[in-house]
């Protein structure tokens, strides 16, 4: 036994000794078995110059051709060039958004750019002369956010390649997401990132092709999974936070420090730094939580951390426990707020402000939203450019569920005594309140929506119809759909067909053909269509049956009273006012408090119900449980036979009292 212990400690000693000697110890490795294919991995060493707001970097990209195709070119995102000039697609599409300052007042400090100084394949010759800007989305030849390298030698099927780059960049002042504001830096979309090669059959690809879009204000993500080793050199007094986990910090003699970070199975890498961050550490379910927050916002520290924990528990129970070892929450200062409310792998940003009121759950709202993105888009890595609804819609749906579960369905976003609002209510209101609800289908690419960026089409509308789907199939089936879809596509790149397949499969399992052969009809309306949903109770009429039926009914020649009739014949007319056809429930409530729950397939433009009854109908209500959450107008979903203003009186009387008090309060000073 003693010998065994001795051998154990001997082995452990040598393992540790060797581990310390390497740049990455065994304990830093996240997963014994890779969670993804790890097609594109990056080693980056970057130096931040806080005087000139510049980055100087060396970068190695390990890329694997997992297809059977021969690759002759490689495109890269150079997204900092979106901030290079007014000709960029990003600038053009942002026109009128107020993101860019008045051009008369701009200085060099406002703009940003990135330039690849050298690019080599392994240790070959510099190929920077072979780089050319391409514009796959809009033919805007002034846009320099995608560059293509023409390879001197093609990359053969299943082969690996190593690209070595030297690049420099000027960091823009924060307009949106990335940049600097005073001494706060948020570096997102900051390095040359390779596009995604889609062989034939992957998502919508009919032939093998690169998928590498220009930078647009509305969309920004689609990348392969990989491992990231990033070293960031910054002034020693600057606190640095980043995607992944910190492996070590080296202090330099020139007053700087180099922070080494490592991440596995992630699609991007983002970092932030500022001398004014306060670091708050916590752990939850084995995950390290690190909050980087301005010390003036410390009153909200618990709000950021607790909401993250609640989201971790909620999704952990329904989809999968958060698999990464760390989550970093960055709260930008108010002057850098445009870097807030963004999601990056294992790092989220949530806006903050000094003295944030308790009744406005903005910290919780953004932390939970960006955390859900860790699942939808960071793990289930959809193409945000082409199917923005698949990450923002899913995230909005889950975020609402989590917020409503944590804080209440009527007050999870605004919680004042007299005005309150739940998260799901909020998303529904954004959808049903659109200027033109028929504007476009949700399947367009992010930049192809008419007249700018109707975010409601990829945030609110999908969230609302996902809630509607939940209403139709039930929460248990919905959770199973999501779990099936998530399990099948985590650390991969699905498209809409894959979600629809999961829905069809699970609904068939749980409900048979209750909703038809499949659920494609649902997606026909909500995803591909531009129609809306509005059901209404048209009319309720009662006809008094004047007499019982009487007369000679057979050959007996005696007058008989046959089958005495009920007192009334009640007729209810229901209407479908918009295009979307969904199955709905109808509650018919009679004056003696008896109720009938009817089903209507919701297909016809109008539907009638008839009752022979001794008591009158008191009211009829379509969708009494609000399962059809996307119904535009709840006011016309029900109708009474006798007007009732009691609840209006009760509510308005409370307003009357407030008006009295305000009037009288003002009169004190008159």
């Amino acid at each position, binding site marked *: 036994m003693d010998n065994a212990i001795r051998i154990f400690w001997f082995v452990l000693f040598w393992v540790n000794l060797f581990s310390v000697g390497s740049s990455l110890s065994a304990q830093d490795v996240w997963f014994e078995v890779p969670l993804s294919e790890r097609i594109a991995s990056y080693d980056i060493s970057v130096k931040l110059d806080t005087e000139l707001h510049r980055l100087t970097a060396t970068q190695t990209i390990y890329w694997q051709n997992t297809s059977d195709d021969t690759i002759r070119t490689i495109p890269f995102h150079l997204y900092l060039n979106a901030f290079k000039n007014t000709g960029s697609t990003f600038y053009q599409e942002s026109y009128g958004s107020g993101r860019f300052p008045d051009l008369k007042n701009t200085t060099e400090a406002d703009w940003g750019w990135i330039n690849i100084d050298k690019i080599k394949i392994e240790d070959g010759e510099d190929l920077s002369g072979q780089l050319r800007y391409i514009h796959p989305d809009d033919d805007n030849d002034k846009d320099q956010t995608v560059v293509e390298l023409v390879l001197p030698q093609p990359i053969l099927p299943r082969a690996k390649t190593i690209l070595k780059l030297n690049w420099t960049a000027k960091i823009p002042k924060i307009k949106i997401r990335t940049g600097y504001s005073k001494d706060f830096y948020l570096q997102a979309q900051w390095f040359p990132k390779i596009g995604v090669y889609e062989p034939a059959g992957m998502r919508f690809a009919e032939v093998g092709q690169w998928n590498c879009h220009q930078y647009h204000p509305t969309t920004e993500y689609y990348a392969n999974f990989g491992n990231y080793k990033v070293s960031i050199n910054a002034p020693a007094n600057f606190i640095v936070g980043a995607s992944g986990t910190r492996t070590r910090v080296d202090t330099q003699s020139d007053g700087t420090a180099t922070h080494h970070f490592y991440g596995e199975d992630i699609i991007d890498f983002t970092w932030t730094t500022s001398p004014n961050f306060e670091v708050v550490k916590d752990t939850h379910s084995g995950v390290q939580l690190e909050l980087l927050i301005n010390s003036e916002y410390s009153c909200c520290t618990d709000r950021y951390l607790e909401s993250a924990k609640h989201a971790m528990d909620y999704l952990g129970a329904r989809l999968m426990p958060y698999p990464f070892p760390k989550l970093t929450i960055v709260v930008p200062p108010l002057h850098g707020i445009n870097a807030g409310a963004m999601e990056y792998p294992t790092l989220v940003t949530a806006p903050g402000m000094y*003295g944030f009121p308790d009744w406005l759950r903005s910290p919780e709202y953004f932390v939970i939203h960006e955390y859900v993105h860790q699942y939808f888009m960071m793990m289930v890595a959809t193409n945000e450019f082409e199917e923005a609804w698949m990450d923002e819609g899913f995230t909005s749906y889950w975020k609402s569920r989590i917020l409503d579960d944590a804080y209440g369905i009527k007050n999870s976003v605004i919680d004042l*005594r007299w005005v309150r609002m739940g998260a799901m209510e909020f998303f529904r209101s954004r959808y049903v309140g659109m200027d033109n609800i028929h504007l476009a289908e949700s399947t367009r690419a992010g930049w192809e929506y008419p007249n700018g960026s109707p975010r409601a089409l990829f945030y609110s509308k999908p969230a609302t119809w996902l809630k509607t789907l939940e209403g139709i199939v039930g929460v248990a089936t919905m959770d199973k759909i999501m779990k099936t879809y998530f399990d099948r596509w985590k650390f991969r790149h699905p498209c809409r067909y894959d979600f629809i397949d999961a829905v069809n499969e699970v609904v068939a399992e749980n409900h048979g053909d209750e909703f038809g052969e499949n659920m494609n009809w649902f997606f026909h309306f909500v995803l591909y269509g531009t129609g809306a949903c509005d059901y209404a109770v048209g009319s309720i009429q009662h006809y008094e049956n004047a007499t019982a039926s009487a007369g000679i009914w057979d050959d007996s020649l005696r007058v008989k009273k046959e089958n005495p009739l009920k007192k009334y014949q009640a007729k209810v007319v229901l209407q479908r006012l918009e295009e979307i056809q969904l199955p709905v429930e109808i509650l018919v409530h009679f004056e003696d408090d008896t109720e009938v729950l009817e089903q209507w397939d919701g297909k016809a433009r109008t539907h009638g119900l008839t009752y022979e009854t001794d008591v009158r109908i008191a009211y009829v209500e379509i969708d009494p449980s609000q399962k059809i959450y996307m119904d535009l107008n709840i006011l016309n979903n029900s109708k009474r036979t006798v007007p009732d203003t009691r609840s209006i009186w009760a509510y308005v009387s409370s307003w009357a009292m407030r008006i009295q008090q305000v009037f009288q309060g003002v009169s004190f000073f008159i």
Partner: protein
Amino acid sequence: MKIINALKYGFRLASLNLKLWSLLYLINLLFAGLVVVPLLYYLGGKLAMTKATDRLIGGFDFTLFNDFLNQYPEFLRLLSTQTMVVGILFILLYVFLTGGILTRLKNMETDLHRLGNFWTGCGKYFWRLLRLSFYFMLIHLSVAGLFFAIFSWSVAGGLDYFTSEAAIFFRAKVCFFLYGFFALFFFMVHDYAKVLVITNNRRLIFRDFWGAFRFVIKNIGTTFGVYLLLFGLFVLVSFFYGLLDGFIHQMGIPSLVLFLTGQVFVLAQIGFKLVNFGSMVKVMKNGVNE
């Protein structure tokens, strides 16, 4: 002691004027009714037949509110216009009533049981008090403008200059507090000017306007002491009412109870107005006698 005596006198006058108190309450109720009754008819006309209004039983319902505004977008414009018009009428009416209230309080000891001189006072001093209110409105706008300018100057450069948001908030708080202090001072001078207008019964109000300033500054300890004490008392009552209101709301006690406690608070507000004027009459009498 002068302060306590003045307040005691104010409370005594207010307690002896239950008729006036009731009248002011009824006027308040009437004006709130002018806003609310058309609103009720409007809402009743649109919503009486839908069962969606049941969602209001639990209080404000965002979905109902949202869908209602989507269907009837003119509602908020109607409501705000109506509230504004009625509010302006209410202010004018209160200027009108102030003449009556002060006439009555001034003659209380000789003429306790007649409301006749109340209405005479209302009509007699209306235009003078309206002009006085206009001048003081200009003063208040100037004071507000001055403090806003001081705040703007103190945070020039905003977040481009300040590293601390707390510093900006602190300046805002200080400016707001000082503004409140000065605003209260001018509200008080305004009230003393009203008393002087009624006491002196002069056509030209400028002498009363300046007279009020002179009187207040000469007796600053008593005048501002009484006013601040009464204002503090009012804030305290409002605070406790807020607690009670919140408690009733939280406990889900029927809205009738909420409404009734609200009415008690309105009565208290009217009472404070009367106490304020009553104590000023007393301070003025003492000041003149001295």
